[in-house]
C-alpha cells in the first residue's frame, strides 16, 4: 500500500462525493443546494487535478482530462452563482439555482468517469 495511492484515491472520490452532495435534490430549490458544499467541491476538484499532473501514461492522461472537464464545469457553476448573487440582483431564484446545479451535474458526470477510471486502474493492476 502506498500513501500516494491512498491520497490520490481519497481526493478523486471526495471530489465525486462532494459534487454529488451538492447536485442531489430538487434542481430549482436553492434551499437544497448549499454553497459551502459547492465551494468544497471546487477546492477538492482543483486538488485532484493537480494530483494528476505529470503522469505520462495513457490512463493518467485521461484522468487529467476528466478532471479538467470537471473543473471547467464547476468553475462555470461558480460563475453562474456569482452572477445570480452579485450581478443580476435577483438572488438565487429557481432558474439561477437550476443553472448552477445543472452545470455541477455535468461536473458530476466527469467525476464519475474519473472514479470509474480509478476502479479500472485498480482492477487491472497486477503485481509486477
Amino acid at each position, binding site marked *: 500500500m502506498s500513501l500516494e495511492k491512498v491520497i490520490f484515491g481519497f481526493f478523486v472520490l471526495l471530489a465525486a462525493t462532494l459534487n454529488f452532495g451538492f447536485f442531489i435534490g430538487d434542481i430549482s430549490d436553492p434551499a437544497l443546494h448549499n454553497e459551502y458544499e459547492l*465551494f468544497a467541491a471546487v*477546492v477538492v476538484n482543483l*486538488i485532484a487535478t*493537480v*494530483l494528476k*499532473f*505529470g503522469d505520462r501514461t495513457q490512463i493518467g492522461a485521461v484522468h487529467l482530462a476528466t478532471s479538467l472537464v470537471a473543473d471547467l464545469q464547476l468553475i462555470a457553476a461558480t460563475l453562474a452563482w456569482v452572477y445570480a*448573487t*452579485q450581478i443580476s440582483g435577483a438572488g438565487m431564484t429557481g432558474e439561477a439555482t437550476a443553472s448552477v446545479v445543472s452545470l455541477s451535474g455535468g461536473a458530476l458526470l466527469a467525476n464519475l468517469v474519473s472514479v470509474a477510471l480509478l476502479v479500472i486502474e485498480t482492477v487491472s493492476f497486477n503485481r509486477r
Partner: protein
Amino acid sequence: MDGKPRPKGRTTVTRPTEPSSTIFLILRRMRAPLIVLIVIFAISVLGLTLMPGQDPEGRPTRMGFFDAFYFMSYTATTIGYGEIPHSFTGAQRLWVIASIYLSVVGWAYAIGSLLTLVRDRAFREALALRRFTRQVVHMREPFLLIVGYGQTGQLLGHALDSLGRRLVVLDDTPEHVDSLDIDAYYADVPGLVADGANPHMLGAAGLEHPQCEGVVALTNNDEVNLTVAMTAALIRPNLPVIARTVSPVIEHRMRAFGSPTVVNPFDRFGDHIRLALHQPSSFQLLAWLIKGEGATLPERGRPPTSGRWVVCGYGRFGHKLVDDLRADGLEVTVIDLSATEPGVIEGDASEPTVMAQAALSSAVGFVAGTHNDATNLSLVAAARKENPSLFIGARQNRPRNAPLFATMDVDWLLVPAETAAREIYAQLSTPLTWRFLQEMPARGDDWAAETITMLDAHCGSRLDGLWKVTLTEREAPALTAWLRSDRAPLGDLMRCPHDRDQRIAAVPLLLLRGDESTLGPSDDTLLRTGDQILFAGRRIARRDLLDTMTNHVVSEYVLYGRTVPAGWLWQQVTGRKPSTHR
C-alpha cells in the same frame, strides 16, 4: 503504458518523441506547491466566510464567498484594497492576519519551487536536449555528426565549416560544446553535452536522420569511439564512419563492425617519418597538399638517414616512433622517466647527467616526444646547446603553444591533433585528394619531385586550390560530343580559353575512371565520359576550366580552335554553329 513489443525489422534508437516532456516535468515538480497554494486559499476563504462580521448599522452579518475570495485574492497577492464590503470586526481581522501569513508562505513556496526548477540541472538538460533534437530534425542539408569536439574536433569543425559543410556536435565536456557559441562559424552548429557512447543521444543527434552523411568519432576515449563506430555500423550499416584511436587493439575491434575508416595519429606519424626518411620529395608533396588551400610549399626536410637518434619520452607515441625508426635500421637511444625495457635510459631528460648518458654530441637526430609541451621545449633547447647540428623533432600537444614551437624553429613539428584533423579533412573534403596521397608514395621520389616542379612552374609555390571535375553530361555539357568522339586528349582540355596555345594554371594530379586511378595523367591521355579528374592550381584556372566545360562557344575554341558566334542569330547568319552542341 508503451509496453507494446516493437515490430522487428529496422532498429531505431531515437526515443519515442515526447514533445511535451518538459511541460510534464514542470507539472510534476509543481504539484506540491500548487496543492499547498490551493489549500491555503481554500482555508482562508472558508474561514473568512465563517467569521462573524457587522454591517455599518451594527447588525451581525457574514461575508459571502464571492467577497471573501475577492478579498483573499488581492490580499494574498499583496495588492490590498482595504476592508470590504464593511469594516472588519476583531474576529475577522484576527483571521485575516493568520491568512496573510499563510498565503505569503504559500506564494513564497510556489515561486521558490518554480525558480529552483528553472535552475535545475535536469530541467535545463531536458530543455537543451529538446532544442537540440528540434534543430537536428529540421536540418535540410547533408550534415556530419562529430562525436568528441576537443582539439582535433574543433580544427576539423572549423575547416569543414568554412567549406560550407553542416555539422552536428556531441561532446561530454561542456566547455567543448560552449566553444560552438564562442567561436565564429558560418553555419549554425547544433551541439549537445552528452555521452557519445549512449545510442539514444546518437539518435537524437541525427544518426538516423536521412541527411546524415557520416559519423566522425574523435573523443579522447578509445572505448567511446569504438562504441560510436559500432552503433553507427549497426544502425546505419552503409553510413561512412571515421574513428580515431591510438590503440591497435581498438583499431582491430573497430574493423570488426562494418568498414570504418580508422585514423591513428601516432601510427600515421610513423608512416610520415618513413616517407620523410626515404622519399623527402614525396613527403614534401604530401605535407603541401594535406595542408589544404592557401598552403605554401614547405621546405624539403633532410632528416639524417644514418646515425644515431635520441628520443625522449617512451609512451605510446614514443614507442611507435622508436619502432618506426628502428624498422628503418636506425640506431635509437631512448630516455624515459621509467625504464620499462633494457637499453632505455631512466631519468628526467632535462637533467644534465641523464642527457650526458645519451651522448648527444655523437647523435644525428633528437626527438622531444613527451606529453608535456614545456618539457619538450626545454629539451629542444638543451639538445641544441649540446649539439647545434642535430636534426630536431618535437611533439606539440596543445594548440596554444604553437607560437613557442614556431620560434624554436624545430626541423620537424609533430602535432597529433592536427595530423588527425588534416587527415580526416582530406578524406571528407576531397576523397580524390585522399586517394592521391595514398597512392602517391608508390610512384617514387623522383616522380614526386617532378610533380612539385610542375606545380611550382604552373601555379606558383602557393596552393590556391584542389578541386575535382567530373566529366558527365550534367557537369560538363559543353564537352559531351567531344568526349564521345574517342579523340579527347587531356591536353586539349587544359588549353586556355583566352589563348589556346597556352595552358591554364593547373596541373591534373589524378584521373579516376571507374575504380582505376592514374596518377599524374599525361597530356595525351584520352578522356571518356564519366572520368573524374583532380586538379591543383590557381583559382582563375578553375574558372577557365568551368567555362570550357559548360559554355559551347568557349569549348569550341578551346578544343578545336574554331571561333563561333555566341548568339543564335549570328550563328544562323554566318552558318558557324558549335559542333560540340547536341
